[in-house]
């Protein structure tokens, strides 16, 4: 297994492991995040390694805070790293835009892990545009080796310019694995800094902000010069046709296309315009290969126009390459009339059988199953809108639950619930996880109270940030890196802001939850139900899951299938007419026993 503090050598590293190692090689002393896939593993690794590596690391309550704490560190002379998934940068966009005006004193890198093809995301936004919006430099690695090596370069660029830098990766970089050669660990960067006050730069009142923008534009001119000379932008191979590419797309070009000259861009904002113009001039044609939006292509077209270069640019604007889906070697076949592409293999014909699907689903014994089953029963025929949020509980969209009607973003369900309550006659029920509640749930709850929205908020408190790999959150307290903190009590927070109806329930006791949910639905005003039960996957990881198993008494069972229809636990198996328990999956939570009308299921120790 990976040893990210080993002195040297070659290891088979996941992109995110390589990035973590890269932080040590770049002398980063301060890191912060809110977990989000495909960046999540970096946080788990830093939880494990940061203290030994001589780095302060925290899970902040959201990405905005993560960028703010890292900005303070870098403004005080400490190299810092804030990282998140692409949509997390939307949350952190507010500090980012003005941080560029302030600038930083030590290197600061913000990693945005984008997710083309939305493997684990709600959208596929192309965050490269944040670099042009905020006016900050951007670096894009193509593979795990570069993901590690480019960090050192990124910090040098950030410090030369006094600006935060956007480090843009994608799923196929973060979750690619490759043999990676380690470099030396940097040990001479300061652990503590001192904040030298400088109002004109760090206090962006209008009178100062306008001047800071002038300074920022000057710095970006300097950045353009750095980009022209940067080894991260290099030319490979020879041919009449030039290919301009960045990120993982480079790997597909390199593997599948031959006989071309490639301009491989790693420093992608600002672009090396002179280098690009020189590369294009005299070519028979140019192909721009990049995933998602025509970020490079549009600038290449402008550079052609401004330099009087007349050459056809193949890419997304002329329909040669798609804007939808992530790229793969298959995508390169779309270039076969323009350049030499290795012949595509002939795949076996797909099956014509209708195969049962295998979507991801809530785990056996997942407490969300209990509170969903109870809510459905309490709601009955009442017209409702189930607002959901970002976490494992989005899986409630599937049958038999159907407890997710509206999902947009972190905290978005809680906010939207108030809108549905006002704009419709449907009852609005918002589900939100514990980590998501601390991330973006407190504010909409406050707003609902303030505006007297008639909503029910169900906080699914499974004592962890489950979906991204069980990171701690304010509700669990922190116990790593030499820092121990108490948990922030959700019930106290909710009561503290003045919610009139607050109940905490055990989701494994489904029938009791039904009663509480009925009261909550009937309550006039803002009602909060806290469904509190630890994630069994976490308990398994921590080896604290009690050994119990459910057992169906076939003599008492009347084959009504209430258990299957309401809890639908994967540990319940229907064999012919009988319901049986798969002991390899069952954790003995007893939800099925709780809803069985004949009490034919018992939990055995």
């Amino acid at each position, binding site marked *: 297994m990976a040893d990210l503090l080993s002195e040297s050598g070659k290891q088979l590293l996941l992109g995110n492991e390589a990035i973590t190692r890269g932080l040590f090689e770049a002398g980063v002393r301060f890191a912060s995040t809110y977990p989000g896939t495909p960046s999540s*593993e970096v946080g788990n690794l830093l939880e494990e390694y940061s203290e030994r590596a001589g780095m302060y690391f925290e899970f902040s309550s959201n990405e905005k805070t993560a960028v703010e704490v890292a900005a303070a560190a870098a403004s005080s002379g400490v190299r810092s790293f804030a990282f998140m998934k692409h949509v997390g940068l939307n949350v952190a966009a507010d500090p980012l835009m003005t941080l560029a005006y302030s600038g930083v004193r030590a290197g600061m890198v913000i990693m945005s892990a984008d997710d083309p093809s939305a493997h684990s995301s709600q959208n596929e936004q192309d965050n490269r545009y944040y670099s042009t919006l905020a006016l900050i430099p951007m670096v894009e690695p193509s593979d795990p080796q570069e993901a590690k090596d480019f960090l050192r370069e990124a910090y040098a660029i950030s410090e030369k310019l006094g600006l935060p830098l956007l480090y843009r990766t994608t799923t196929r970089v973060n979750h690619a*694995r490759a043999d990676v050669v380690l470099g030396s660990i940097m040990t001479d960067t300061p652990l503590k800094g001192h904040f030298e006050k400088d109002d004109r730069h760090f206090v962006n009142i209008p009178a100062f902000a306008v001047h800071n923008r002038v300074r920022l534009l000057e710095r970006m001119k300097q950045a353009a010069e750095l980009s022209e000379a940067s080894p991260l932008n290099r030319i490979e191979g020879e041919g009449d046709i030039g290919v301009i590419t960045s990120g993982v797309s480079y790997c597909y070009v390199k593997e599948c296309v031959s006989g071309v000259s490639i301009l491989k861009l790693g420093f992608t904002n600002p672009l090396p315009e002179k280098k690009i113009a020189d590369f294009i001039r005299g070519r028979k044609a140019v192909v721009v290969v990049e995933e998602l939006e025509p970020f490079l292509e549009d600038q290449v077209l402008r550079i052609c126009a401004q330099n009087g270069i007349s050459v056809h640019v193949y890419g997304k604007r002329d329909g040669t390459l798609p804007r939808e889906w992530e790229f793969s070697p298959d995508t390169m076949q779309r270039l076969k009339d323009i350049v030499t592409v290795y012949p595509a293999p002939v795949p076996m014909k797909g099956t014509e059988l209708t195969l049962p699907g295998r979507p991801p689903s809530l785990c056996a014994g997942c407490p969300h199953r209990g509170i969903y089953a109870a809510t459905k029963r309490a709601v009955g025929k009442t017209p409702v809108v189930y607002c959901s949020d970002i976490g494992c509980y989005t899986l409630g969209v599937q049958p038999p639950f159907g407890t997710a009607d509206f999902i947009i973003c972190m905290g978005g369900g809680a906010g939207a619930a108030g809108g549905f309550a006002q704009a419709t006659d449907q009852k609005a029920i918002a589900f939100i996880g514990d980590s998501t509640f601390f991330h973006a749930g407190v504010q909409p709850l406050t707003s609902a109270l303030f505006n007297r929205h008639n909503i029910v908020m169900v906080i699914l408190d499974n004592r962890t940030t489950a979906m991204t790999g069980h990171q701690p959150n304010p509700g669990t307290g922190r116990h790593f890196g030499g820092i121990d903190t108490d948990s922030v009590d959700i019930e106290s927070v909710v009561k503290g802001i003045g919610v009139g109806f607050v109940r905490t329930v055990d989701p494994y006791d489904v029938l009791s939850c039904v009663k509480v949910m009925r009261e909550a639905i009937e309550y006039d005003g803002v009602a909060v139900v806290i469904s509190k039960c630890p994630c069994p996957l976490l308990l398994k990881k921590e080896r604290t899951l009690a050994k119990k198993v459910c057992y169906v008494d076939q003599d008492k069972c009347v084959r009504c299938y209430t258990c299957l229809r309401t809890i639908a636990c*994967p540990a319940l198996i229907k064999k012919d007419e009988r319901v049986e328990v798969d002991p390899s999956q069952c954790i003995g939570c007893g939800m099925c026993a709780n809803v069985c009308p004949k009490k034919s299921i018992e939990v055995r120790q």
Partner: protein
Amino acid sequence: MKYSVQIVGVGGQGVLLASMVLGTAAMRAGYKVRMSEVHGMAQRGGSVLSTLRFGDDVVSPLEATGGADLIMGFEPMETVRSMKLGSRDTAVLMNLDPVYPGNVAAGFDTYPGIDVLLNEIKSRNDHVVTVEATEIALKAGKAVAANAVMIGAVAAMKGFPLGRDLLKEVLLETVPPKSTDLNSKAFDMGYEAVSKHD
């Protein structure tokens, strides 16, 4: 030389572990290695795919559709679902022991017959090798060793470029020390099962 393996199965079957073992062995054999893994939501009992490519000069972490030299199928239905990853020339190692999806287990859907699934592949490809990995693992001691059976089996596949000793060595370094005997036995039984096949 370039060789690519597509490992398909269900979250929890040890697909990621198997790809790590194969990848580490490939690196130790002196090859460049490129892999791509599915993390996050897909691990909640869903279909899982892991791509491994190694050789003298590999760059891409993904393989072209149809381009696999070997499909390592941890689960019969998932193997059939992923057939298009390979061509008629692809070697297919297929575990015949099923993992039922939630909907099937709950009685709302039916799992196709194993012979039907097998026939789907055999009608398209003459290089199919089957193994009953869970069955063999149980004989070795425990069902969880099914992935060790699969790794042993792959070592015996015709044309597979990584050696038996190397794979076993890496496997035993990767699994917890207390399960060394179990995994060692399961690996050998997997290897034998495929050797007999030829």
